């Protein structure tokens, strides 16, 4: 049984409201921080906790905070990244829907630590009903003196706003998010300068994921040292995993990092095993961008050790035999799922979501999509598989932002681990058309556009 630091109180009646949340110890971290701690002391606790960015990159949060430039007379900003768009990921949404005050509390404590007096929660426009939930929570926090001027008599001021996006995966990338928040197209910026130096409106800015921010109240209340006692090694604390695909119990689970993958996939407390008595074929453990792993490599690392749900264990063996924890978007495939079709589908996603700024990504994703379309529809040749490998290799590392890598990795991993399936498509052109889930030709054509 994993500890619940984030989701402990989600089933408390009326937890969406301030009263119920407060009665469960809500906002005590704000009282503790503002009355008894200096901003630097809060940063220090977060550093000690070993908390790592929960959006996908896994960068240590305390270190990111310590990079924030503090020039005299220039405002600083904290922006919460709630643009959750990575296929397979729906954990931030769950957290905001179930316990919005936790995010508000985390935003107050984190903004205090960073010296920000105006903070924004940038949420994807499709989550419109969550905007209402968050704005209500913010209004309640303000009415109770936790936001606004001179919070709890500490002299600290903070305003918190929710900003809606317009439907663009790329805005999950922090510099694209800032561009979008400035009312522009979501084209990522060239780094450096990093947002910590020149971010929102060219002012020092920290961008953190929802789950990262939501972890800070517990750390302030219980100290960073206590947080490191949960988890394993450098993967401290708990992580929300959003599990989906062909499993019995899709949903969002809070796990202690270091939980064995076998237990996560097969125990009834979590995914509950593969649905409909099918065989387990493959898994994408951290959102669509991370490499797909066949069942045998998922359970055991290349050294034969049991794999764990942690940053280190899931990436053990590099991309040759490992993957990544990523955002925690856990997508499971049963024996009926076609890897070529799934790769084609994901490539269509990246092609659709490429901002078009860098040629390798803009042109490369379109080219990969065409080649994959040929293979999936029984029109491919063996050379196409090598061509596909070649294209993805030339996208990776050659773009301003990581979307290029994110588009290349799933293709590379699919060929690396499931090359026979690609070859099968070449050798059996007729069968691969009929196995397309019984779809009519019209849908296939539609899907290509």
């Amino acid at each position: 049984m994993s500890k619940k630091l984030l989701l402990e109180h989600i089933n408390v009646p009326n937890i969406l409201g301030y009263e119920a949340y407060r009665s469960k110890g809500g906002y005590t971290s704000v009282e503790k921080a503002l009355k008894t701690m200096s901003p630097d002391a809060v940063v220090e606790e977060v550093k000690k906790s070993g908390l790592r960015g929960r959006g996908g990159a896994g960068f240590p949060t305390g270190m990111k905070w310590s990079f924030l430039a503090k020039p005299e007379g220039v405002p600083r900003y904290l922006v919460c990244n709630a643009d959750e768009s990575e296929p397979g990921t729906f954990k931030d949404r769950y957290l905001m829907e179930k316990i919005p005050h936790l995010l508000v509390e985390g935003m107050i404590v984190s903004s205090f630590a960073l010296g920000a007096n105006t903070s924004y929660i940038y949420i994807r426009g499709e989550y419109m009903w969550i905007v209402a939930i968050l704005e209500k929570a913010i209004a309640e926090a303000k009415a109770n003196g936790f936001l606004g001027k001179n919070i709890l008599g500490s002299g600290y001021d903070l305003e918190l706003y929710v900003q809606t996006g317009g439907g663009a995966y790329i805005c999950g990338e922090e510099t694209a998010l800032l561009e979008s928040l400035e009312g522009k197209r979501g084209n990522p910026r060239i780094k450096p300068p990093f947002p910590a130096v020149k971010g929102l409106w060219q002012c020092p800015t920290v961008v953190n994921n929802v789950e990262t921010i939501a972890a800070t109240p517990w750390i302030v209340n219980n100290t960073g040292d206590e947080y490191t006692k949960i988890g394993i090694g450098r993967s401290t604390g708990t992580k929300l995993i959003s599990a989906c695909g062909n499993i019995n119990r899709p949903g969002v689970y809070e796990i202690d990092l270091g939980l064995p993958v076998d237990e996560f996939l097969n125990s009834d407390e979590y995914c509950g095993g593969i649905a409909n008595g099918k065989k387990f074929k493959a898994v994408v453990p951290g959102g669509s961008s991370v490499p797909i792993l066949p069942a045998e490599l998922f359970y055991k690392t290349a050294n034969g050790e049991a794999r764990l749900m942690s940053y280190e264990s899931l990436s053990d063996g590099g991309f040759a035999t490992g993957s990544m924890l990523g955002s925690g978007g856990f997508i499971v495939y049963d024996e009926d799922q076609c890897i070529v079709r799934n790769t084609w589908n994901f490539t269509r996603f990246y092609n659709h979501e490429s901002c078009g700024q860098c040629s390798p990504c803009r042109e490369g994703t379109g080219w990969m999509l065409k080649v994959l379309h040929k293979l999936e529809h029984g029109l491919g040749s063996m050379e196409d598989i090598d061509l596909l490998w070649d294209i993805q290799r030339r996208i990776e590392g050659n773009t301003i932002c990581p979307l290029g890598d994110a588009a290349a990795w799933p293709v590379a991993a699919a060929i690396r681990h499931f090359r026979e399936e690609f070859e099968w498509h070449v050798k059996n052109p007729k069968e691969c058309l009929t196995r397309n889930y019984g779809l009519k030709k019209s849908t296939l054509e539609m899907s290509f556009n």
Partner: protein
Amino acid sequence: MAHTYDTRTTEVTAKIPFPQEILDKVEEITKRYPAGKQKSALLPVLHIAQKHNDGWLSIPVMDYVASLLKITSIEVYEVATFYTMYNLKPVGKYVLEVCRTGPCCTRGAEQMIEYIEKKTNCKVGENSADGLFTIKAVECLGACGYAPMLQLGDSFVEHLTEEKVDSLISELRNK
């Protein structure tokens, strides 16, 4: 990738100027940013404008939004054409946006899209002849664990089955 505005769109709706309550809301939003940074209000304001303008953004509406935020029209066009939630041509009364990305497909999203096309007598990307529906196949909406799913206005309809689609569509038809 960015979509384009079809200047051949002949049927133009432009419910401008906005009524006072919308203007007040725009005013409130622009106050969330430092002085001179009112362009930041563009995305939220375009959502409001679109909702008010029968679900889509025509050029006159975008020009009007530009004047409200004191920015140039091109700054509005480049944003409206970049983000997928802004419709640049007229849409039906109900826009059904069905997710077509990988995780949803493992649970039959593609079959569901076909079924919805059949039930509404409307192809993906088109408006139904009666003007009631627009069907869109969209990328991941963050509901992978509740697949297949669709977005309708400000809410999601999840765990779709053929029966659920039947009742949703007849409910919308009778509204």
